[in-house]
């Protein structure tokens, strides 16, 4: 039997989902992070606790939410609180083990930009802005970043630091409760901060991806770990759970329309 076929988005979600451990408390952004976190909950980490910034805590949606405030998230939650409380009593107080973020840009020190491309005063592209990200990046115990790998998104320096990784100079995390990005998962590779320099370094490649492809998709001179590993390909079970989730999601949202 050959390995099952999968897309680059699927392997990204599956690898990300493998990072979560049972019982961890995870603050989830919408989109790719939500997909990966729910996949973890439905597979390897059934007792992961998912928190969305809409105030839904310990939620177990049957289908993926389209927005951060879908009714499903409230109905399936252990508790629902206001937005001021979710940030103050739950995130800021250090109750979140893992923050799951995406962004438009990331730089070599794991700083994230979701504010503007170009200058702030006269932006080329005005992006949505900070949302919950700056405080997730600051206060979650660690941060997992998911981002499609392109030269436009992996840049030498982000145009705007919306959320701090290790700072513009890699200088560290002083004053932050959490320890910052622990891993960046893309559709090509896995990057981790170098323990000393904190520069994002390729530590893993997805099957069939070579180092040059990753370097060509990165806007800085990318460091590569000596002990580079090849990602375990998605198992049939992982793929079945992910696809089932996405099918249920599509059906549910179509039925609602």
């Amino acid at each position, binding site marked *: 039997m050959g390995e099952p076929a999968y897309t680059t988005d699927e392997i990204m979600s599956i690898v990300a989902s493998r990072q979560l451990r049972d019982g961890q408390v995870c603050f989830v952004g*919408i989109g790719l992070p939500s997909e990966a976190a729910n996949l973890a909950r439905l597979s390897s980490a059934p007792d992961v606790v998912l928190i969305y910034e809409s105030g839904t805590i310990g939620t177990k949606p049957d289908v993926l939410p389209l*927005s951060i405030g879908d009714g499903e998230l*409230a109905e399936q939650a252990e508790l629902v609180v*206001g937005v001021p409380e979710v*940030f103050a009593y739950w995130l800021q107080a250090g109750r979140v083990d893992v923050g799951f973020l995406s962004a438009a840009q990331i730089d070599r020190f794991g700083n994230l930009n979701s504010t503007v491309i170009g200058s702030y005063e006269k932006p080329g592209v*005005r992006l*949505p802005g900070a949302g919950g990200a700056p*405080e997730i990046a600051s206060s979650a115990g660690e941060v997992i970043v998911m981002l499609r790998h392109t030269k436009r998104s992996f840049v030498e320096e982000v145009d705007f630091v919306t959320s701090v990784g290790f700072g513009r100079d890699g200088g560290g995390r002083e004053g*932050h409760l959490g320890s910052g990005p622990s891993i960046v998962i893309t559709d090509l590779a896995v990057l981790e901060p170098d323990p000393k320099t904190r520069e994002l370094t390729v530590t893993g490649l997805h099957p069939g991806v070579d180092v040059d492809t990753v370097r060509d998709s990165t806007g800085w001179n990318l460091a590569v770990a000596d002990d580079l590993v090849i990602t375990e390909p998605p198992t049939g079970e992982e793929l079945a759970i992910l696809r089932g989730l996405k099918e249920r999601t599509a059906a549910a949202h179509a039925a609602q*329309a």
Partner: protein
Amino acid sequence: MGQFTSLSDAISDLVYDGAAVALEGFTHLIPFAAGHEVIRQSKKELTLIRLTPDVIYDQMIGMGCARKLVFSWGGNPGVGSLHRLRDAVENAHPGPLEIEEHSHAGMAARYSAGASGLPFGVLRGYLGTDLEERTNVARIECPFTGESLSAVPAINPDVTVIHAQQADRKGNIGIWGITGVQREIALAARAVLVTVEEIVDDLQPRGPNFAVLPAWTVDAVAHVPRGSHPSYSMGYTTRDNPFYTMWDVISRDRSLFDDWMKEYILSRDFDGYLAALDDGSILEMASNG
């Protein structure tokens, strides 16, 4: 004191040109019908306050109601950009738009401070970001530990508008599900308008996280069923995801946007809007466009 009134009278009475206005609702319970009425009444020079501007502020900004936007995340949730907001920021169309942006945590702290009668809120936030120098935030030192934290100024809108599931006959408001920042921003405001799905004898929650705003904290209550469309009202309506997708098409194009607003907002009242929704015609321009 919880006066029942029509939506048009309420907007006319409470919202004035130049006012600082918050139409709140975190994905859930967004007061769209009230926003449409603000547009119909051609209110100008408003400071629009909201964590997530969403389609409602895209419409108000595109129609030239706003002088300034105070916000923390300006996207079309699950879809992409708010093109009218972007056009205002990137190209000053239909006019310049001053922006003051925060994080959600910062905005929530500002609202809580406003509701608490304090001039500022404190949080661990902004540290190390480029937001810190671009927005209204200051460092403050803990007098006990010497630690440095962020202070953000309270927000107290001239008018807050929210949509809720129920009012009882005395004007007490019942709200449940994802309640976002609505209690705080209602309690922070100088005047409060609530549009509701239903008027009931006694408040009857049909979901989690039930909260009450007593009638005496509310200035006007308007009965506007489905008034949160295309967002949703738990227990009454579901989110109209295709509408949000359609909005991406409409709002990308200035003239298509103008035509759509003329056809579905300016030339009709909210019942007319709902009729166009129910017969499917509201989606036509996007498919033809």
